């Protein structure tokens, strides 16, 4: 298998793929027209299941299997970061020193942190009603925790953020999403199907499993981002090579 033969095989495969893609593009509906076959079906399905936010219905109900893939991609990437950014044998951990931060900045951080946590939870909880959802709300909650690092110092953040329990919570949330999917099987419908009662439209309990999957994703994203930032912060602030003091 010389290089040239490998290139030839790649060229044949590539042209086949290109031909199929071009053929598929010609059958797509016209851009900018008023006739949207996919959009109409999605909106009809999401309204049938009393989910006000169509995107949340697509994410967590009609294509929940793709969201399972997205979640495991995030989980695997954070896992990769934990492995790569671990403290190697020739590195030592220097305790972070307390920092002097201007009083207004510290007071702002301590005031806005709970508000940001509440806003994140609000965005997660109303994922299927208004724009938002598990992913966005999870990131907001995780960023809110790090206001403490910005407002005070890394020592304070490490006190209230035990990384171990966040890793466990990350794994728990990921498996919660799976268990919710399996519950669909147990209930006699399909994997990740929306088997719960759909509730009344535009209320918090509408959409069957959509809010529950939203909550699972929200917790998973929040914990994953906290673990991700923990490893970045450890490397940037604490861990040093042997040579450095």
């Amino acid at each position: 298998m010389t290089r040239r033969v490998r290139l030839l095989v790649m060229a044949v495969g590539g042209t086949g793929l290109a031909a199929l893609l071009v053929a598929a593009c010609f059958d797509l509906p016209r851009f900018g027209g008023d006739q949207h076959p996919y959009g109409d079906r999605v909106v009809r399905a999401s309204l049938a299941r009393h989910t006000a936010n169509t995107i949340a219905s697509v994410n967590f109900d009609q294509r929940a299997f793709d969201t399972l893939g997205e979640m495991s991609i995030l989980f695997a990437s954070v896992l990769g970061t934990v492995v790569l950014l671990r403290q190697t044998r020739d590195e030592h951990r220097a305790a972070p020193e307390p920092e002097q931060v201007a009083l207004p900045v510290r007071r702002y951080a301590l005031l806005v942190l709970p508000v940001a946590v509440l806003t994140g939870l609000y965005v997660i909880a109303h994922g299927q009603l208004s724009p938002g959802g598990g992913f966005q709300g999870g990131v907001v909650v995780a960023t809110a925790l790090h206001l403490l690092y910005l407002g005070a110092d890394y020592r304070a953040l490490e006190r209230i953020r035990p990384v171990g329990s966040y890793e466990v919570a990350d794994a728990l949330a990921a498996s919660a999403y799976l268990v919710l999917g399996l519950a669909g099987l147990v209930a006699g419908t399909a994997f990740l199907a929306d088997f719960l009662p759909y509730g009344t439209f535009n209320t918090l309990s509408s959409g069957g499993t959509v809010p529950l999957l939203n909550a699972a994703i929200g917790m998973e994203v929040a914990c994953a981002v906290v673990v991700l930032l923990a490893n970045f912060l450890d490397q940037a602030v604490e861990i040093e090579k042997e040579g450095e003091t």
Partner: protein
Amino acid sequence: MDDPLIVVALLLVAGSATAAVAVRDPARQALVLAVLGTVLAVLFTVLQAPDVALSQLAVGSALTPLLIMLSVRKVRRPKRREETER
């Protein structure tokens, strides 16, 4: 139709994206990326995609800059250490 709004948003995104490429220093690039994130969120809002805009806001305004700046600090630290008296 609100075409002028869409045109302005697209021009802003084009401008900040080119700036993000043109700026070479990582720290300054992180600043331009933060502004690019905000402007992209405005473009998604103008194109009536609030969920995408919310995702861009949540990630692009505080998380991405923090990740980039921490990496820049980690990479630049040994060099900076010789300059200071440590």
